[in-house]
Each structure stands twice: as structure tokens, then as C-alpha cells.
């Protein structure tokens, strides 16, 4: 009797073991099915020529579907050593143009020289640092490389790595 019981237990345990393993593998497959497709992940690199930009001008370009703000700082804008990108002695602020609160796109207000997010009233200064409202941190800086006066987005150049270490 005891033998039979333990045999049945074994069948039960073997079955649940197989079912559990199959379940885990199936969950893994489901997780991977929802991952971004390879064509999405390889979304490429973008080169921007900074030389035609005027002082105080802001341009928005699209990188990986996200807006990137590039601002050439004018003399009256405070410089920010931890965030500014220097290319050919000119200071630029480059950031992913998404509010760090919930991801809306802030608007550049030339009059007050700040980025203002209408969704929840967040404000950022010309360097992209949060100055008011719910945004918890400055706007993110995308990985970049400087090539003369050209900016390559998506590649981690030495200048980017320096900024990242300065922040940390």
C-alpha cells in the first residue's frame, strides 16, 4: 500500500515538475514575443550638422522616435559644465525632449528662456535642468559623439562618457 502511494506521489510530482517547467518556458516565450522587434531595436544613428545654428536657436529633431532638443546657447544663458556640449567653442544643450515626469514634450519659451511642460506645469531651464513642478530630474542626455561640428546621436563618444561620469 505504502509503495503504491509513493508511486502515485511520484507520478504526481513528475507531472507537476513537467507542467511547471513547461509553464516557465511558455512564460519566457510570451515575454520575448512582446519585446521590441529587431527592426525596432536597430533604430539607427543620426548625424546633425550644428554649424548653421544661430545663437539662442532651438531645433527639434527626431531620434528613435523621440524628440531631441538642440539649443545653441547665447552669451546671456548660464553655462552648465555638467551638461553642456562644446563643439567648436560653442556651447550647446542637447537633451531628449521628454518631460521626466510623464513623458510629454515641453515647449521652448524664448521670452523666459525655459522649457515649459503644459501637462503638469513642469519647468526646465535652458540647460534642461528641472526648476519647478513634478519633474524629478533634468531632461536626459542622449548618447552622442562629437565629430568636428557634427553631432552623432546613438553612439557613445568620449565626451558623452565624460558627462555621464561627471553626473555620477
Amino acid at each position, binding site marked *: 500500500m505504502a509503495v503504491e502511494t509513493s508511486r502515485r506521489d511520484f507520478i504526481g510530482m513528475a507531472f507537476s515538475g513537467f507542467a511547471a517547467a513547461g509553464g516557465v518556458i511558455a512564460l519566457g516565450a510570451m515575454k520575448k514575443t512582446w519585446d521590441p522587434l529587431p527592426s525596432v531595436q536597430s533604430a539607427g544613428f543620426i548625424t546633425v550638422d550644428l554649424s548653421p545654428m544661430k545663437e539662442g536657436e532651438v531645433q527639434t529633431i527626431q531620434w528613435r522616435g523621440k524628440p531631441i532638443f538642440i539649443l545653441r546657447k547665447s552669451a546671456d544663458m548660464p553655462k552648465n559644465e555638467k551638461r553642456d556640449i562644446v563643439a567648436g567653442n560653442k556651447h550647446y544643450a542637447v537633451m531628449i525632449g521628454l518631460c521626466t515626469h*510623464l513623458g510629454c514634450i515641453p515647449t521652448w519659451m524664448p521670452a523666459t528662456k525655459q522649457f515649459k511642460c503644459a*501637462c503638469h*506645469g513642469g519647468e526646465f531651464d535652458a540647460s534642461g535642468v528641472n526648476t519647478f513642478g513634478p519633474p524629478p530630474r533634468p531632461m536626459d542626455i542622449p548618447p552622442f559623439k562629437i565629430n568636428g561640428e557634427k553631432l552623432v546621436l546613438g553612439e557613445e563618444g568620449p565626451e558623452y562618457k565624460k558627462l555621464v561620469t561627471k553626473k555620477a
Partner: protein
Amino acid sequence: MAEIRKATGFIDWLDQRLAVNKFIKVMMTEYWIPKNINFLWAMGVVLMVLFMILIVSGIFLLMYYKPDIKLAFDSVNYTIMQEVEYGWLWRHIHGVSASVIFLVIYIHMFTGIYYGSYKKGREIIWLTGMALFGMFSAEAFSGYMLPWGQMSYWAAQVITNLFGGIPFIGEALVVWIRGDFLVADATLTRFFMLHVLLLPLVILLLIAVHFYSLRVPHVNNQESEEFDFDVESKKYLEGKKVESKVVPFWPVFLSKDFFVVGVALTLFFYLVCFHFDFAMDPINFEPANNMKTPPHIYPEWYFLWSYEVLRGFFFDIGGIAAMDIGLAAFGFANVIFMLLPFLDRNTEHTAPAHKRPLFFVWFWLLLIDMIVLTVYGKLPPTGNNAWVGFGATITFLVLFILLPIITKMEANCKCNNGGCK
């Protein structure tokens, strides 16, 4: 197998194979409903009717809708609205009933809270009901996204971004949910699947459990009078219908339900025909643009209260970022109703709120506070608005922290047999 006789008619033929007579008895003619309940108890049937309307109108929309970011906007705003005969009607029915169903869900919920129908044996009904509320919220949000207008897009952007607040895995989770670095085609197609298949299936299953769980502890009543359903139903079956405290669901109680459903549908079709625009945001008639955020974004009215809780904290407290406090408060607001049966420490009684002085005040404060949150959720969060929103958010949190205390006080009060009058 039981012996199968020659059937005396079609019903008898079915009865021998499907036990339809027994089924009708259990579900309808001998499912007992207390007599002393008012029209607020008809909201369940109203919801069922509205849900059926949603499914039917949804099926007709589904035949012309195209889940592709290049085609979605036009398939809704041109094909369905202009070309398909009565396409506009199905869309307005679908949009308006999605909105109205939330109004009725809130009435249904607050009826349950007011009459104490969430506790003492009815916890499962409450839990499945709140699970249904959660699923309907997901269903509404995934559907709101499909027309791929500006508001759809930015609602999806904000809602999916909420998951970014989860520690450590947040960023990766957002990309995983969207299937892209931004809200894109992959996001649309998977939310389309959720909206038309998976979530409706879960909702149907939950409705079945919700109904089933109601059969066992039975429906509460206006006076929270306790009586033996077996004894009362026996009286009814013996013909002592006046003396009995119960009536059968079919045909007696449903006749009252039909009247309420009739009134509700009159109002509903009035909205569909003359005020359909209240469920349509003008910003959503502009195609989605991932490079331009509308100046002021807000959810549909039924999410405004929890949206206001989310953004109620607009300054950092004690070194914790305002956004994280907001997210935590938002999470709190979305699970706390679920825990209501366990927060109410006066578990022995299902007395209505007007027989529980402290709870009565609590109930109306909660309702007023949620209306304030809803109103301010729609207004821009600047200046005084931000402070009113902050105050209402704090009030909301405090009310739920106070609930176990006041109900415990009430339970300890021995006057009036613990009912505390």
C-alpha cells in the same frame, strides 16, 4: 445514464438533455430577491444591458476598424463615420456607453458602500466587482487608444510611462509594454488585441463569478434585515406572497428592473443622439503626432479623480520626489477600494450608512472629495488649482486611514446592539 423517455414537447426534450427546467429555477424563477430594495439595486442589470450594447456595437466597429498606425485614424474618422451606413451610430453608441457604463459602475459601487453590501459574507462579491472595475478601466483605456488621435496617443504615452515609476525595472518595462522605444505600431496592435479579445474574455469570466458569488450570501436590502431565505421562499412558494419577504428574480423582480433599464436607456439614447460629443474629445480628431504634445492633456471624466491623486503632490516632501509620492498615492487610490471589506472593522453589521453616524459622515465626505478631485482633475494644475488638488488628495488618503479607526469605535459601541444609532 438516466433513462431518456419520448419527449412530450420541445422543452421536455431539452430538459431531458440539458436540465433546462432546473437551470431556469436556479437562475430565474427560484432565485430569491428581498422585497425591500430600491431602484439602486437595479444598477447591476443596467450594467449588464450596457455591456451587451458595448459588445454588439463593438462587433460592428470591428468590421471596419484597421489596427495600423497609418490606417487607424482614417478607418474611424472617414470609413466608419462617413462611408459605412449607420457607422456613426455604432461609434456614438460605443463611445457613449463606454462613458455611461462608468457612471453606472460608480453608482453601483457607492450603493454597495452606503448599504454595507461589501462585508459580512459578501466580500467575494465586492472583490470580483472591484476586479471588474479594474478590467473595465483597462478596457476603456485600450479602446480610447485605438482611434489614434492626438489624445489617444498622449494618453497611451502617459499611461504606459506610469510603469516607469516601478523601481529598477521601470524603464525596461515601459519599452516591453510598448514594444518600441515610443508608443508606436506594436503598441497599437497589442492594445487592439487586449481591447477586442483578452480583456472582454476576462470581463465575461469575472461577470460570471460576480453573479455566482451573489447567489450564495444573497442580495442585501435597504434595512440590512437578516432573514432566512429558505423559510421566506417556502412561504412564497406556498402562496403566502404578501407575508413572504422575498420575490423571485423572474418574473417579479425583473419587471422592476426592466422599468429602471427603460429609464436608463431613454437617457442613454438621448445622449447618443443629441449629446454624443461629451464622450468625444475634440483633440482626438487630430491625427496622432509623436513630436507634438497637446497643450493640456487629461483623461476621460471617469479617470479624473485618480488622475488628480496622481498629480496632487507637486512638490518634494522629505527628499522624496513629488512624482514618486504621486505614483505611490495613485497606486494606493487604485487598490484601497479593493480592501474596503477589511478596512471596515465593524464587520458584524451590514447596516446602511444612515444608521451609522460616523460612517455616514465618512461616506459623504468621500463622495464629495471624489467629486472635487474629478472637477480639479480636468482643470490645469496651476496656482490655486494645484493647492485644491493637493488638499483633496490628502483628504482622500486620510479618509481611508481613518476608516478602520471610526468603524472600530462603532463596533466597540454597545448601544443599539452594536449598530450604533
